[in-house]
């Protein structure tokens, strides 16, 4: 992608225009705009980052620093479904590692990898803030609490066959 091809839609640009006004300075809109870009383009390529720097009147380095600091921002594409398994204390004490291993086996990949068909990426994440429902798996940012090997297998099957779409819209 060259910077000419990475472009927000006009609706997005209008939305960003409004968003910028909510803050004392346009730099504050950087994170929301990065979320939007990731939603629209899948990940944050260097060209996307340059485009955003220009859009908000920032230096590329200011954008790079933010993109690389926060774990939710991705500089590489990932699978259509991002399965994020929390393995922190609450979930660990309730079988998260066993669950994660099971899911890896089901998908036939290792932690952090993407399936060959580009459908699933599995990752271990830090405490999701839902320990009451441990273990917790986020699928494209939708929480699945009290997850079990069975419930996850069922979900993966559904996603694979397109019977269930997971998404919760809204980036900002």
């Amino acid at each position, binding site marked *: 992608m060259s910077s000419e091809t990475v472009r927000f839609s006009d609706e997005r640009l209008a939305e960003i225009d409004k968003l910028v006004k*909510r*803050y*004392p*300075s346009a*730099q*504050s*809109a*950087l*994170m*929301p705009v*990065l*979320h939007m870009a990731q939603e629209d383009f899948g990940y944050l390529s260097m060209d996307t980052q340059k485009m955003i720097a220009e859009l908000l009147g*920032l230096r590329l380095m*200011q954008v790079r*620093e*933010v993109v690389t*600091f*926060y*774990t*939710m*921002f991705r500089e590489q594409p990932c699978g259509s479904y991002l399965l994020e398994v929390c*393995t*922190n*204390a*609450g979930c*660990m*004490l*309730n079988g998260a590692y066993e669950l994660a291993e099971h899911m890896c086996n089901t998908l036939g990949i290792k932690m952090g990898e993407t399936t060959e068909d580009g459908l699933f990426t599995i990752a271990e994440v*830090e*405490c*999701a*803030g*839902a*320990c*009451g*429902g*441990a273990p917790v798996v*986020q699928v494209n*940012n*939708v*929480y699945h609490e009290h997850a079990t090997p069975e419930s996850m297998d069922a979900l993966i099957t559904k996603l694979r066959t397109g019977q269930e779409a997971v998404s*919760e*819209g*809204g*980036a*900002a």
Partner: protein
Amino acid sequence: MIPSDPKQVKQICFDRINIPNVHKLSVAREHGAYEFLPTVLNEFDSDKIIDEVKTSGLRGRGGAGFPTGLKWSFVPRNTGKPTYLLCNADEGEPGTFKDRDIMRFDPHLLIEGMIMAGFALNVHDAYIYIRGEFLHEANVLNAAIEEAYAANLLGENILGTNYSMNLTVHRGAGAYVCGEETALIESLEGKPGRPRFKPPFPAVEGFYACPTVVNNVETLATVPAILKHGGEWHAAIGIPNNTGCKIFSVSGHVNKPGNYEVPMGTSMKVLIEEYCGGLQHGTVPKVIIPGGSSTPWLTAEHYDVPLTYDDIMKAGSFLGSGAVIVMDETADLVALTRRLSHFYAHESCGQCTPCREGTGWLDRIMVRVQGGAGTADDVDVLHDAAQHMAGRTICALAEGAAAPVLSLLKFFPEDVKARLAEKSA
């Protein structure tokens, strides 16, 4: 006033939590939301509100337990600069999941609390900084805020008064340290969330160098009840210096994990046995982490500790965010510590030498120890490395990172030694 019967419990933040669809403005209003707001906007002034909050004894629910009224009174007035109110909804401390419930079930409670706090502090732009993963909660909040704008509860001339306030939800993007208030401010300014050293304190120079108040969701959600019923009313709940109710997020080896709002002073044992249905295995917990993973561990010895800032401190830990992680006899404490060390090594913002290098070092040693490849020296090194991180850094993350390691070494040295012996065996 500490009732021991769960059904008798007075609830403040969770008062409306079980009402279906209370996230909708119409439903919330049927159940008292914004009822008292006109009175506050028309009849109260800053000093009165701050006085009521001081009288209430409310202490910050985000972790540090700093008296909220006092914090508000530090904000300089008439500086010629705007004052900002930031709600800390980053909820990243492992074990904590209380703010999420307030936001997704009763967002109008938080919004009302923020309008009142904003009015008291003469704030015209307020922000809710919510952790990036809480997309659903952000969407619920945004919908609620939209309704509130439409009903003139937010925006210009709220309810016909001359007070105006905008409220914006701002999503984080996966960084625990952004829960620290100055990191939160940096993040909200569109930068990496690296904490600032203090002074200057945010109350004087915070968001874009303007006076800024950062409060936790639960803290702000408590404000409407305090103003409605009076500070005295709130002060009468719990015990002196530890007033009101507190939501405890209980997780780990209990039968009914979840959020429970109980009056301060309720005992840990009552919380675990009567509310949470007791332990999964055995009768006495092996370890209780009382206030989120960054707080030092308590053991069976303190099973009875009253849930107050002061009592838990006396027992050697902190009430923190009220995230109680319970471990029964089946817990592998070396593995748990290793996992928590990994968390801090992942989340350190990286600026302070002891934290950047120390967290990674602890993590790598713990991996080795857990894998049975530890050496006798490791115990000393772990101790030294953890000890000299704590309290020598810009923010308290490093101290939090040291806590599990130091607790493990203090209470369960034999568990560590057993692991070390594995290799030689």
